[in-house]
């Protein structure tokens, strides 16, 4: 049905013309769900945009052809192209929060879309819209259709987005990372819906994602993209389980697995390789300096009966503002020198726990302990409290956790200066350079700015910064969720290494169970601010106790890699 041949897309730009897509071919049949995987920047969205004819300027198709049925999409005039959009091809974007016009009711948006492409009365359009919403799994659709987008939850909004894409009966739907913003439960529902639509209505889907698990569970065929070029394509089973291309192989190996814990990941060879030739100090210096600290042992961290309440905005004179309980009597103990995994769906209170520990959020009740001494709560914790140095944090988003206006050297020197660890300016620089080497970056990075680094490199810098405080406890809040699998693997490897070498205590927060399995010794599962299960990690994965844990595990898209590949990895790495 859809045939893309030798597609090349270019972006003329400041530093010459950039070829985002080169010589890409793919076909999608009726009712087929075609997966498109590849790391960030591989050109996945660009292919989608080229097909629907909405390439961002100054991008243009410089070569190749795109046919939908008998129609050559590339030679259509503006108006004709606009006619096909919605009518024959639709698109679903990643973020349901921003894809809907906040000022129009769901009804208006649906009816408008239907009437745009069909001469149909408003009444008929409405009943079509309602049945579509019901089909996508929105209960009580005839009433809820009157609502505005903000009155729907994220999952419901994504259903509305899908309903909008469907309402004109298109032949092809391009789904650009349709579930990235959703949590696992909702994600599996949406994927079910897509599968159902492909089967019952024969709609072809181009499913763009970077999640191999999603591909494994949803797609018949898959195309692996890298640097704008097709690395490998074919039936899903074949590509995932018996990849031929070396890149695909290493990519598959880097996917964290839910079924087995690995010591290290095999890292695909990327441009991100370790740059060597440090100036001055080397990793050994950094290591020596880290070990020269007084208390070398990892410290235990625990919380007891912590409750956190957030007060909503006051909206009535007579009613008290609503109180939202983000954490409800939560207790947790992290043993010294171990990794505690903290999992739970979005909004369950994971980050709030991290904030309580780091003193950013004031709990209404509860106590904290660092080793055996009491750790003051947020407001009581002075700026000079020793725990400020001992507990360090690595954030989720490496793009925002480094101040983009500061040089790497300044960022790294800050903890040294702040905690009075090193009073000499030059020595601070040396140490920073040495630490960069330790985390696998060239020491000349010291004079550059964060935006000159990739996400993975930045996350290494963030780790380096926290290490320079000589911490005993590291809190990592989703440290890799913004990264591609291959880069994620590198960072996780780094964390594992450091943890082992310096026997750090780590609180590892993630919503990705597979990742947690790879990292943690113990695990705590959080739901709606309550602990539902806690215990040793392996025991949990092999035999989860709470219903919620079981559900969570079963919903997580699982890519069961070929056993052989996994053991190979182990062999090469040891």
């Amino acid at each position, binding site marked *: 049905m859809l045939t893309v041949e030798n597609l090349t897309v270019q972006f003329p730009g400041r530093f010459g013309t950039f070829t985002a897509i080169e010589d890409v071919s793919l076909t999608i049949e009726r009712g087929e769900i075609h997966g498109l995987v590849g790391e960030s920047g591989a050109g996945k969205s660009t292919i989608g945009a080229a097909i629907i004819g909405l390439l961002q300027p100054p991008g243009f198709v410089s070569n190749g052809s795109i046919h939908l049925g008998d129609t050559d999409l590339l030679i259509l005039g503006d108006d004709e192209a606009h006619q096909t959009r919605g009518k024959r091809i639709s698109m679903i974007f990643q973020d349901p929060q921003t894809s809907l016009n906040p000022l129009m009711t769901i009804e208006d948006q649906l009816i408008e879309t239907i009437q745009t492409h069909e001469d149909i009365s408003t009444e008929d359009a409405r009943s079509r819209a309602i049945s579509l919403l019901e089909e996508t799994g929105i209960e009580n659709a005839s009433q809820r259709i009157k609502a505005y987008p903000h009155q729907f939850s994220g999952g419901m909004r994504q259903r509305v987005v899908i309903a909008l894409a469907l309402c004109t009966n298109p032949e092809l739907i391009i789904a650009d990372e349709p579930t990235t913003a959703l949590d696992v439960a909702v994600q599996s529902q949406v994927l079910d819906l897509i599968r159902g639509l492909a089967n019952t209505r024969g709609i072809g889907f181009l499913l763009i994602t970077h999640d191999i698990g999603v591909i494994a569970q949803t797609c018949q065929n898959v195309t692996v993209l890298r640097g704008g070029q097709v690395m490998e394509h074919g039936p899903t089973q074949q590509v995932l389980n018996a990849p031929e291309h070396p890149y695909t192989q290493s990519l598959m190996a880097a996917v964290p697995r839910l079924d087995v814990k690995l010591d290290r990941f095999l890292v695909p060879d990327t441009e991100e390789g370790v740059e060597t030739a440090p100036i001055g100090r080397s990793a050994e210096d950094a290591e020596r300096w880290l070990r020269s600290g007084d208390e070398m042992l990892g410290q235990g961290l625990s919380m007891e009966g912590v409750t956190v309440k957030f007060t909503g905005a006051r909206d009535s004179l007579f009613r008290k503002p609503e109180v939202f309980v983000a954490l409800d009597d939560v207790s947790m103990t992290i043993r010294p020198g171990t990794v505690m995994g903290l999992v739970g769906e979005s909004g369950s209170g994971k980050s709030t726990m991290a904030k309580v520990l780091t003193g*950013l959020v004031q709990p209404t009740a509860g106590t904290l302990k660092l080793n055996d001494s009491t750790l003051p709560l947020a407001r009581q914790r002075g700026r000079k409290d020793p725990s400020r140095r001992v507990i360090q944090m690595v954030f989720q988003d490496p793009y925002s956790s480094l101040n983009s206006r500061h040089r790497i050297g300044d960022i790294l020197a800050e903890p040294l200066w702040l905690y009075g660890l090193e009073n000499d300016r030059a020595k601070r620089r040396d140490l920073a350079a040495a630490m960069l080497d330790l985390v696998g970056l060239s020491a000349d990075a010291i004079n550059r700015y964060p935006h000159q680094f990739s996400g993975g490199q930045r996350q290494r810098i963030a780790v380096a910064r926290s290490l320079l405080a000589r911490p005993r406890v590291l809190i990592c809040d989703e440290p890799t969720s913004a990264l591609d699998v291959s880069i994620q693997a590198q960072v996780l490897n780094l964390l594992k290494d450091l943890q082992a070498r310096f026997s750090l205590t780590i609180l590892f927060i993630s919503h990705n169970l597979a990742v947690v399995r790879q990292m943690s010794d113990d695990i705590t599962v959080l739901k709606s601010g309550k602990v539902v299960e806690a215990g040793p990690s392996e025991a949990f994965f092999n035999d989860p106790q709470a219903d919620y844990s079981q559900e969570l595990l079963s919903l997580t898209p699982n890519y069961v890699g070929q056993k052989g590949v996994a053991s190979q990895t182990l062999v090469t790495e040891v």
Partner: protein
Amino acid sequence: MMSRFFQSDGVYYFLRTPSAIVAAIIVVIIVGGAIFAPWIAQSNPYDLASFSLMDGLLPPVWQGGDPRFLLGTDNQGRDMVSSILYGARLSLFIGFMSMAIATVLGVGLGLAAGYYGGRFDAIVMRIADVQLALPAILTALLIDGISRGLLPPSVQQDLRVVVLIIAIALSLWVNFARTARASVFVERNKDYVQAAMIMGQRPSRVMLRHILPNIMGPLLVIMTVDLASAILLEATLSFLGIGLPADSPSLGTLIRIGMQFQLSGEWWILWVPTIVLAALVVSINILGDFLRDIFNPRLR
């Protein structure tokens, strides 16, 4: 540093935006003329002995004026070119100073309000409301009046410029405060700020060293726009008689004086400074637009 500057996106897009280049050239010429006025100008409007009433009301050279006075003279015999150079000097000084004070005041309060939130924020924002309820012209009238009442007239005359600067600054700071505050609200939840807070850094350091550089983009845009409006406001205040005295030739006072001659045939006394003012303000605004586009890559 220099190389980073020349490779920066800003310079790249600048060289590809003709309007910005023209605007920058105009600004450079006027600002340069203003800065070097004492060396370029043939007479000094502040030095009463350097011009003579006898030369009054001469038309520009091409209308048969005296070759000594390219753009003619005003009713005091002052050379228009010199007056404009000095006038731009004074206008730009007032503009820059009031913009600078407004920036410091507004950004300071806005940062603190956004950072601490709560009651402090509420107080600052209410003060901002009061300020907004008293538009620029009224604020200037008020400050002007108060200064006249409080200061002995001898000091007053010397402080007219200062009073004007304060009055204009007071009417401009709210913009900065609101923008800074809004940016801080966004910024303070970003991880790099949280990281600094967790580390136990002083609030002042977090605000100034960490947050401030990251919210400079929108502030810079406001700075240019407000520089332009400060210069215009000075002109308007001069028109209302609460600006500068006529012997301190700002562009505003030159235009005010020129207004008397717009019908009497001596058009150059009004229109030469008006055109210079308009060119300056338009150029600054164009540069402001350009900056806005730079800082908002999505609009490129």
